[in-house]
């Protein structure tokens, strides 16, 4: 039988159109009008809803008063990846959910788009806007160049320390570069932002440099004054289902990575009937992007009730809008096929936990598993909690002079913005503790 998972299912122009930016940027006039909608609330609820606590009313007022660069700095002071977050944050369940105009009218101020407007202006400036304080003379090793590691490195560099980042992959950025949906961050924004961030100086970035062994870590601990671990979740949950080894059953994250790294999106292979298993942002992104590269039918199978899906209803609507079918209370139990997957056996219930299950077979030539990532056990003996690194306060692990942040720490909400907040706060804590020594 021929392999129906292949590239080139759609004409190039169609693919380009499909992957155009999800939310196009505001022009100056639109930004002014939108900024005018902000009430400059007292003790504004949007600020507490932002994991990095950006002073949102202030930056919007700065847009209104014609100083978008000052607005951008207000954002970047709290969140150095404010540009990226403006594009990828699920604002519908963060700042914009708490906007008083969302609560009152169901129409929040478009905080994310305004944030993008302002940060874009700063990034257009010639110079990096932050200066380093006089060198504190300390050296800090950061493992992982994802948002947590980058935010930590930048803040430490600002405080005058010298930072060395060790990243196992060929490109920095972590999931910013390899994971987040392509239509949320077009035109190599992740790459440009990192170049801009490194503009502060004092950060040495080593790529293709995994920190894997016990010796690696020991070396870092003895050669540096502190170590920050921001290595995200590089492992995958396993699915107990027969036929898992069949060809064309793969991890959603790997599929997404192919999409993100493709020089030409029409080179990405996809099946005709794609089944995605999972209920979070990864499932949605994998489903939508497989549709956009040319799959005929895309179905998400989620084992629980629809309301319990981790993907927000906004994300679910987005998927539905692109023609993705979401089936809740459906559990894949086996993959059938000779060499390649051809069908999925699914048990379906009317309500999660009920006994009334029926078994169905669904046609599927491409299965994407999005059932969660896990921590690859770090080569150092750290206390853990729910399978992630346990931390206290601002990222302090159970070992002296090792801090951690981002997806790899418990409890974690798997958001870029949370990783940024944790990296930043750990940096402040590292700085304070090194200075007090």
């Amino acid at each position, binding site marked *: 039988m021929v392999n129906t998972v292949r590239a080139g299912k759609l004409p190039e122009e169609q693919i380009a159109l499909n992957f155009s930016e999800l939310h196009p940027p505001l022009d*100056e*006039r639109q930004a002014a009008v939108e900024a*005018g*909608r902000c009430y*400059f609330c*007292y003790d504004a609820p949007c600020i507490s809803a932002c994991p990095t606590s950006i*002073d949102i*009313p*202030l930056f919007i*007022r*700065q847009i*209104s*008063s*014609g*100083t978008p*660069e*000052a607005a951008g*700095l*207000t954002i970047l002071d709290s969140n150095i990846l404010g540009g990226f977050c403006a594009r990828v944050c699920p604002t519908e369940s963060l700042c914009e959910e708490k906007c008083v105009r969302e609560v009152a009218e169901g129409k929040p101020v478009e905080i994310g788009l305004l944030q993008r407007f302002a940060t874009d202006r700063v990034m257009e400036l010639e110079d990096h806007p932050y200066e380093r304080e006089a060198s504190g003379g300390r050296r800090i090793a950061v493992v992982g160049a994802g948002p947590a590691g980058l935010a930590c490195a930048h803040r430490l560099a600002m405080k005058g320390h010298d930072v060395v980042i060790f990243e196992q992959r060929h490109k920095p950025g972590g999931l910013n570069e390899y994971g987040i949906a392509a239509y949320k961050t077009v035109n190599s924004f992740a790459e440009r932002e990192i170049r801009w961030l490194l503009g502060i100086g004092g950060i040495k970035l080593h790529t293709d440099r995994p920190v894997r062994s016990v010796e690696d870590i020991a070396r870092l601990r003895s050669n540096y004054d502190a170590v920050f671990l921001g290595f995200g979740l590089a492992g995958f949950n396993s699915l107990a289902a027969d036929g898992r080894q069949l060809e064309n059953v793969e991890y959603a994250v790997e599929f997404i990575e192919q999409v993100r790294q493709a020089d030409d999106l029409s080179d990405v292979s996809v099946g005709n009937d794609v089944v995605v298993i999972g209920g979070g942002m990864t499932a949605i992104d994998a489903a939508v992007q497989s549709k956009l590269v040319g799959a005929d039918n895309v179905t998400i199978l989620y084992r629980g009730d629809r309301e319990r899906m981790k993907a927000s209803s906004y994300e679910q609507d987005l998927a539905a809008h692109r023609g993705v079918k979401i089936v809740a209370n459906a559990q894949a139990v086996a993959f059938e096929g000779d060499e390649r997957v051809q069908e999925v056996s699914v048990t379906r219930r009317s309500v999660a936990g009920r006994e009334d299950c029926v078994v169905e077979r669904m046609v599927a030539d491409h299965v994407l598993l999005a059932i969660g990532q896990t921590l690859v056990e770090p080569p150092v003996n750290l206390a853990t909690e729910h399978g992630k690194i346990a931390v206290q306060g601002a990222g302090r692990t159970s070992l002296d002079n090792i801090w951690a942040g981002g997806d790899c720490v418990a409890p974690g909400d798997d958001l870029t913005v949370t990783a940024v907040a944790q990296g930043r706060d750990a940096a402040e804590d590292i700085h304070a503790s090194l200075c007090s020594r």
Partner: protein
Amino acid sequence: MNLASDFCGIKSPNPFWLASAPPTDKEYNVRRAFKAGWGGVVWKTLGLDPHIVNVNGPRYGAVWGADRQLIGLNNIELITDRPLATNLAEIKTVKRDYPDRAVVVSLMVPCEECAWTDILGQIEDTEADGVELNFGCPHGMSERGMGSAVGQVPEYIEMVTRWVRNATRMPVIVKLTPNITDIRYPARAACQGGAHAVSLINTLSSITSVDLDDFCPEPAIDGKGTHGGYCGPAVKPIALNMVAEIARDAKTTDLPISGIGGITTWRDAVEFMTLGAQNVQVCTAVMTFGFKIIDEMTAGMSSWMNSKGFTSLDEFIGRAVGNVTDWQYLNLNFVTKARINQDLCIKCGRCFAACEDTSHQAISMSADRVFDVIDEECVACNLCVNVCPVDDCITMERITPGQIDLRTGAVVPDGYGNWTQHPNNPMANPAA
């Protein structure tokens, strides 16, 4: 960025003060303001005991934009309604705790020398940085011969200012009312009386609206209303002009000015300062948004200064004064024409309605709604620019000297030529 300000000897870390009004009515508010970062305050106007009383119904009327943005605010509040001793004690403790901020005390007592001498002694005890004489309040107090009743008579301003100068060594700021015909006369009077500075504007007499069921002006107090004082963004253009008039008056050029009236953003403040104000005072904007707007103001001013290469306030204070002139000196050889950018035009036809109905019939309209400027008719008034809903769609383009102005058929002369030299002016001085 260094925003340090020195206003006739009164130092503050930035030029942003709160105007005498409810935001500066008591210690609690002023402490919050200083914590937020305001550079100084002018304490809510003090008077003699027994203290006055306010109405017990609404004090404010307002004018709003479509999304309820506050455009203008009208109030019928009087001066402080708390005992003098309470205010004095609070002023003293706040000033003690905030030695780096400006604390100026606003005063309004009857037009008798002893009343002023007496209260000034008590103010000096608080160690406040200076006094501001409230000759501006246009409602209530003016019925009692104070406030704008004094500010509308230059002779009174001069007399009271002199009494105050004789009675105190503190810097004396005279706060002017805009409810007069020519602001230069009261400013000159303050100067004559020895004032160290003037501040302006206080509020404009106004009625904001009428209830069409009760046939009563707002705010209604048991079926009756009275005019109040208008302030907020709506009054800024009036205040800007008055500040500029004083700044360029030869008789008051060296008189420091504290600019007040509708200042809402850093930009408003900078505009006042380029027209000669050395610092600014804010009231309605904080009453609308709270003290936190100071962050936008200081950051905005700093980033603007940075973009211009300025490192201190002095480098831009008064920078626009020299460019404010009399009409008669405007260059009549500066000839422009409106230009409509067809790519940006959305074909609403507002420019056509404005020009065709109310101006010079200088815009043509085709059957398919293409709008074009007729150079033979365009007088360059720029009304079309101002009514066009699209940014930069209509712009004014200068006709270079040597070319023909199609409206007059004459060659646009090179160089400068004004009304004082124009042949149509019977008083023209052709030699000039």
